[in-house]
């Protein structure tokens, strides 16, 4: 038989409600459905003596409908046990509703977000100020450079990234070569594949791919590391011990990445061109020697240098945003995730924006 929580008998001049079974969190939805159907046209006698078990949810439901019925008709409760009564008084004492946070309109949200962005920009400028002052201090007193930490981060963000950078660059080099060779073969300009691959990799793709991979890899790590240190109060502890977090945490990361990223770009250029070489051998049958000879002719050193110049700039963007977002983490774990996401998104966007800026600059300068 299906469990019955509430039954009622209709009599001549009154309605008898009988509560029974378990009035608990698990059953209140069913009970409420039944309670809603109770007709309110005559006197109600509510018998609660056969309730076997109840919890605060059950009692609250009872109170809610007790009040409702009382407004409509006269109501009498029978079989109230002492325990139920105690619970009833306890729960009706603070029956004030919790004020839920006001919902914002879309228009308000846009305004709030705009202000938040402006605030972030202001904060970032402050952050850059602190960083520059720490840099000046170390400049004047080179003993304060955190050499050990810097080397550690070069190893972490640079050396340990070689495999993933190599793999990505190789694949991108191959793809460029494949796509390009199909088009060039139509004109019989097979040999120009070397120009396409070499110049696009060294000037644009090498630096860009490296920066994007590193933003995802090291930028996020910086944010999470510093954010976690903020939550555990390690940063506050450093401050009270006289260890300036900008000197001890930010500068080593920024400097390490500014050294490591150009080196990674150099590596990415080589592997990318090699990828292109492999693909053009397979697709167009250009031998490695032919490829190399052509490469000597077309790839001027300037293309390579123009690509490398972007390295420190991208590194600065990635590392400083990574650290900045880490410092913004507030005292909850969700905040680490949010700030890590925005760190990577901001860094990648800015890398692409600055790359566009470099392109315009180079074109205007006729390079």
């Amino acid at each position, binding site marked *: 038989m299906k469990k019955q929580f509430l039954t009622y008998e209709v009599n001549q001049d009154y309605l008898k409600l009988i509560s029974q079974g378990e009035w608990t969190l698990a059953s209140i939805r069913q009970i409420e459905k039944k309670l809603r159907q109770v007709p309110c046209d005559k006197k109600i006698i509510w018998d609660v003596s056969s309730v076997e078990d109840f919890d605060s949810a059950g009692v609250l439901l009872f109170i809610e409908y007790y009040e409702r019925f009382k407004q409509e008709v006269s109501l009498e409760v029978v079989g109230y046990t002492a325990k139920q009564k105690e619970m009833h008084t306890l729960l009706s004492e603070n029956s004030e509703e919790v004020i839920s946070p006001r919902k914002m309109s879309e228009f308000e949200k846009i305004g709030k977000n705009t202000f938040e962005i402006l605030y972030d920009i202001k904060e970032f400028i402050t952050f850059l100020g602190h960083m520059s002052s720490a840099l000046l201090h170390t400049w004047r007193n080179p003993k304060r450079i955190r050499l050990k930490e810097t080397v550690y981060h070069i190893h972490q963000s640079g050396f340990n990234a070689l495999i993933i950078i190599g793999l990505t660059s190789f694949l991108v080099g191959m793809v460029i070569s494949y796509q390009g060779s199909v088009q060039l073969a139509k004109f019989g300009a097979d040999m120009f594949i070397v120009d396409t691959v070499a110049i696009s990799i060294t000037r644009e793709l090498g630096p860009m791919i490296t920066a994007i991979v590193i933003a995802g890899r090291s930028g996020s790590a910086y944010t999470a590391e510093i954010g976690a*240190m903020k939550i555990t109060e*390690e940063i*506050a*502890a*450093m*401050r*009270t011990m*006289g260890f300036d977090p900008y000197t001890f945490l930010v500068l080593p990361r920024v400097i390490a990445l500014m050294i490591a990223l150009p080196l990674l770009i150099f590596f990415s250029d080589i592997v990318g061109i090699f990828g292109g070489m492999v693909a053009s051998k397979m697709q167009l049958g250009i031998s490695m020697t032919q490829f190399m000879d052509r490469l000597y002719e077309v790839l001027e050193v300037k293309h390579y240098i123009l690509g490398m110049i972007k390295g420190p700039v991208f590194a600065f963007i990635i590392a400083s945003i990574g650290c900045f977002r880490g410092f913004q983490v507030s005292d909850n774990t969700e905040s680490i995730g949010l700030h890590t996401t925005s760190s990577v998104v901001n860094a990648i966007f800015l890398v692409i924006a600055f790359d566009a800026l470099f392109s315009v600059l180079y074109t205007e300068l006729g390079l």
Partner: protein
Amino acid sequence: MNPVIQVEGIVTRFADRTIHDGVNLHINENEIYGILGESGSGKSVLMKEMIMLLEPNEGKVSVLGTSLNGISFKDAQSLRTEWGVLFQFGALFSSLTIAENIEVQLKEYTNISKMMRNKLVSSKLALVGLEPHVGALYPSELSGGMVKRAALARALAIEPKLLFLDEPTSGLDPIGARNFDALIVELRDLLGITVVMITHDLDSIFSIVDRMAVLADKHVVAEGSIESVLQSKHPFVEEFFKNEYTKERFKDKVKDV
């Protein structure tokens, strides 16, 4: 006698919430000073203002005779080597071992030899009652009580004159808490340091604290020894010290009220 810490007319606001509205207190040399108050009364904020983690909106703080208002970088750095801070959850550097945590300031600010540093580290470990082998462990490998002890050892590493403790006995078992209290008294007597501690622990308040400030309603509502604090008629003091439990537990001290 000059006070070690002097706080005058502190006003602290966060957005539109006022935390302190004119807080005054002074802490004398070589005493154990307690800061108490209900949660949210700004005890931790006040301590953060003393150790230069926060700046009050108004008012003056001076520590060890140096005013913190408009303090120069150099003075701030030298002040920071004269105090030790124990954070509520230890805040040990998680990437360093306990021994490295303790010696980090020695390494940075002194040029003593590696051998001497090792000796100092093991003496600090012994002082706070930790086994020598703990030095090789990482903070994540320690229990809560051991983390607090290790953090205290770190705070004592550069022989500070002033020690700040944020709820040193919270989260410790009763025996551990009493031992920690005894340790604090011992350190004060032995090394002659001044101790400032935030605490809720009635045992600590009645047994080891010399003077205290009670924060409530954005002000210091009572300051001084336990006897003079008990004279206060402020509702928080009434509720905190003059409830049945406290009266029963510390009969001999709370009898006169």
